[in-house]
C-alpha cells in the first residue's frame, strides 16, 4: 500500500529491517538481538531525521512478528497532551476513599504524561506468543525532569515491556536512564549506500542523474534521506533530467528561508510587514518563541555583517529571548525583537 503513495519519501520507506539503507553493523547487532529473543532497554542516539524511529519501528516489527500491532506503541514525548487527555489525567489523579488499600483517598503525583500515555500500555499483559511488549518513546530528551519517572517504570515493568528510547541529544538524558539502557549510536548513511539508494529510486522513476549530482545531493541535504528524496521529487516534476543547477534551484529549507526573509524585512525597516510575516510563520509552523529565536540565531550567522553589528544583533536577540522565558504572549515578545532590529537597521 505504501508503494502506491504519491509522496516518494513514503513510497520508498523501508518495509523490513533488511531494506534499511546502509548501517550494516547496526542491522547485524539488531538481528542478533532478534535471534536471542531477548534484549535490554535500548537507547537510540543520532542526529535529526536520519531514521532512528524507522529503525526502531522495523526492529520491533521484526521482533514481534505477527503480534506487532498489539504489542508495540510509539509515543511522541514532545507532543503535549490534548485537552481530553489532561482531563482524563486529572480525573484519575485521585484514588477514591471508597477503595480499600493504603492509597485510598490519596493523590497520585505521577506526571500526567506518564499516567496517560505510558502506564496503560506498560501495565497491560503481553498478547500472543512473544516474550514482551515494545514501547518506543521518541524525543525522550524533551521529557526533561519527567525522565525521573521512567527509572522505576523501567525496572518494575521491565519484564513485561521493553523500551526503546530515542533521542537526538544524549547529553540531556539523565545518568540513571543511561545506565539502564544499552546505547545504540545510529550513524548517518554513508555515501556509498546513499548513492545506491538514490540510483535505485532514479531507475524506478526513470530519472537521469549522474554521480556528481548525487554527490551534491548528499552534501546539500547533509545525508538525510528523507530530505534528499523530497528534493529529488520536487526536481523531477519539471523533467526527468536532474543536474546540479536544478538541485540548487529547488533546494530550500522553507522554514529557515522564511525566517531569513523575516530578518531581511526587518533590516529594510518595515516593521508592519515583518510582524505580519512573523505571525504567518508562527501560525503555520507552530513555533514557540524559543524555537524561532534559535533559527534566527543560525540565520544571522549566515548573513554578511560587520563584527560590531553582528554582535549588536546577537545582543538584541539574547535580550529578547531572555525576556520571552517568562513572557506570556509570544507575539509581543517576537514583535519586540523585530521592532528593535528595525530601529537598529536605521543606524546601519
Amino acid at each position, binding site marked *: 500500500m505504501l508503494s502506491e503513495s504519491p509522496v516518494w519519501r513514503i513510497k520508498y520507506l523501508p518495509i523490513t529491517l533488511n531494506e534499511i539503507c546502509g548501517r550494516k553493523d547496526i542491522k547485524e547487532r539488531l538481528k542478533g538481538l532478534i535471534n536471542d529473543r531477548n534484549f535490554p532497554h535500548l537507547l537510540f542516539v543520532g542526529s535529526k531525521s536520519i531514521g532512528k524511529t524507522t529503525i526502531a519501528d522495523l526492529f520491533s516489527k521484526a521482533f514481534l512478528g505477527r503480534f506487532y500491532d498489539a504489542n508495540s506503541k510509539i509515543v511522541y514525548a514532545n507532543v503535549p497532551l490534548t485537552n481530553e487527555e489532561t482531563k482524563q489525567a486529572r480525573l484519575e489523579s485521585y484514588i477514591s476513599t471508597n477503595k480499600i488499600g493504603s492509597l485510598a483517598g490519596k493523590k497520585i503525583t505521577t506526571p500526567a504524561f506518564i499516567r496517560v500515555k505510558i502506564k496503560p500500555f506498560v501495565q497491560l499483559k503481553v498478547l500472543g506468543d512473544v516474550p514482551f511488549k515494545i514501547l518506543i518513546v521518541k524525543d525522550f530528551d524533551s521529557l526533561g525532569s519527567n525522565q525521573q519517572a521512567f527509572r522505576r517504570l523501567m525496572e518494575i515493568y521491565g519484564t513485561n515491556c521493553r523500551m526503546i528510547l530515542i533521542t537526538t541529544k544524549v547529553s540531556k538524558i539523565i545518568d540513571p536512564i543511561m545506565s539502564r539502557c544499552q546505547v545504540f549510536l545510529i550513524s548517518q548513511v554513508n555515501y556509498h549506500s546513499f548513492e545506491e539508494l538514490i540510483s535505485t529510486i532514479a531507475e524506478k522513476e526513470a530519472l537521469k542523474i549522474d554521480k556528481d549530482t548525487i554527490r551534491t545531493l548528499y552534501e546539500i541535504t547533509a545525508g538525510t534521506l528523507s530530505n534528499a528524496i523530497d528534493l529529488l521529487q520536487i526536481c523531477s*516534476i519539471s523533467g526527468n533530467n536532474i543536474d546540479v543547477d536544478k538541485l540548487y534551484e529547488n533546494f530550500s529549507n522553507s522554514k529557515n528561508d522564511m525566517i531569513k526573509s523575516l530578518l531581511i524585512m526587518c533590516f529594510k525597516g518595515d516593521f508592519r510587514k515583518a510582524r505580519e510575516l512573523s505571525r504567518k510563520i508562527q501560525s503555520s509552523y507552530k513555533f514557540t518563541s524559543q524555537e524561532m529565536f534559535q533559527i534566527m540565531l543560525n540565520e544571522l550567522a549566515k548573513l554578511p555583517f560587520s563584527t560590531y553589528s553582528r554582535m549588536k544583533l546577537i545582543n538584541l536577540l539574547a535580550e529578547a529571548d531572555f525576556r520571552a522565558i517568562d513572557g506570556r504572549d509570544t507575539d*509581543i515578545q517576537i514583535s519586540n525583537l523585530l521592532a528593535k532590529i528595525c530601529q537598529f537597521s536605521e543606524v546601519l
Partner: protein
Amino acid sequence: MVAQNTEKMPWVEKYRPRFTKDMAFPTAKVGRQKVDLIEDLKKFVISFFKEKEKLNEVNRQIRAHNRTHEEKEYQEEKKLPLDKAAVLLEGPPGIGKTTIAYALANDLNMEVIETNASDTRTKGALESKLRETTKSRGIMDFIVQSKKKLILVDEIDGLYGVTDRGAVPTILSLIENTQFPIIMCSNDYKQNLQSLYNKIKRYEVNSLPDEEVLKITRKIIVKENISGISEKELNLIIEKNEGDLRGVINDLQGVSQGSLNKNTKELILNLNRDSTKEIFSLIKYLFQNVNTLKEARNVTNKSDVDYNFLYKWINENLTSYIRLNSEIANAYDNLSLADEIFGRIRKNQYWSLLPYFYDLFAGGVVLSRKHRTPDESFHRIMFPRFTSTGFFSLSANERLVVEKIQKKYKVSDIEAVQDFIPFLKLLSGTSRKQLQELSDWFEFDVNEKKLLK
C-alpha cells in the same frame, strides 16, 4: 400589592406592565416575515387549548379501544405536533420577552409556571418541576375548575446542559407531553439547540426603538417625580442601552435615587454594559488624548476592562498610531517588559509588581510616541487577531489533517506540522494533478485540501 412594598421594589418590577395593552410593543419576525407578536401568541395559546381538547377526546376513545382489545391491536395515543405546543422567543435582554408571557397570561386569565436558569439549572430539576404540570392534570382539577396554566421556560440558553446537547431531548419530551402551552425564551442563537429550532416556531424579537423607550421613560419620570436629570443624560442612558428597556429603567433608578455625588453619577452614565465597545473607546482615548503618565494611570484605573485583554489590544493597535521605528521599538520595549512582568506575576504570585505592569503597558506604550500624525482620529481600532498561547496546539482542521497523515505515515504532530506538511504544500503547489493525487492518497476532503494550498 401593598403600598409600602412598592417603595422598596426595583422600578423594573414596579413598572412591569400587567397587561399586553400597557406594553411597549416589540416587533418580531419569523424567518424573514414580520409578524404581530402579541396577536400571534394569543392565537397560539387559544388554539392550543382547542386542539388539546379535541385531542383529549380522541385519546379517550383510543384508551377505551385499548381497554377492550388485545395488546397487538392497541392504538398509539395521538400527540400534538410540536410546533402547536411550544414557541420560542429569541432576542436581546431586557426587551420584554418574559413580560409578554406574563401579560399574556393576565389577559387570558391564566396562571404562569415559570422556570429559569437561576433556579432550575439541571435537567433533573427541570423535569421534576414540570412533570406534574405537563404530564397529567392535578387531581383537584376534576373537582374545581382551576385556572389554566401557561408554562414559561425562561433563559433556555442558560440552562445547564444546553452546551452539551443533553438538554434538548429533555425539552423535546417536555413539549411532547405537555398539557399546557409552552413559551420559551432565549437570548442568542445556540448551535446546540439547532434540532429544537427545526421543530418549533421561532420568533426573533427585535430590540425596542429608542422613541418607544423614551416614551416609557418619560412616563416613569413623571410618576416618580424625578427632577435632576437633564435631557442630555436621558438620551445618553437610552443610547447606550440600545433598546434594552430594563437596562434603561435600572440606570434611571440608579441615577435618580439616593444622594449621589457628581462622580458616581458620571460613572453610572459612562458605564457601558458592552465590554467590547468599551475597549474600543478606551484604546481610542488612550492613544488620542493621553499626554501624561497621570492621565494614562487614570484611564487604566477607571476602566473595568480585564487587563489580560487590554494589553493584547494595545499590541494589536500600536502600529496604527505609532509610526516611527525608534518609537515603535521604545513602545515594544515597554510592552514586552510588561508582558514578562505579567508572566512572573502569574507564575510566582508577585502581585506587588502589578503597578509596573499597568504603567508600562499603558503609559509606557502611549508616551513613547513623540510625534503625532494629524489623521489620528480616522484609525480603525482592530480586534486582536492573533493570539498565541505559547504552547503547541493545533486547530481542529489541522488536527484532522495531521491525524490522516499519521494513519499512513508515522510522524509526530510537531514533525508533521514543521516538516512534512510544508513539503506537501510545496509538492501540491506544482500542479493540480499532484494536489489531487495527494489528497486522494491521504483521503483529504475539501476543507482539508485548503490547508495544502
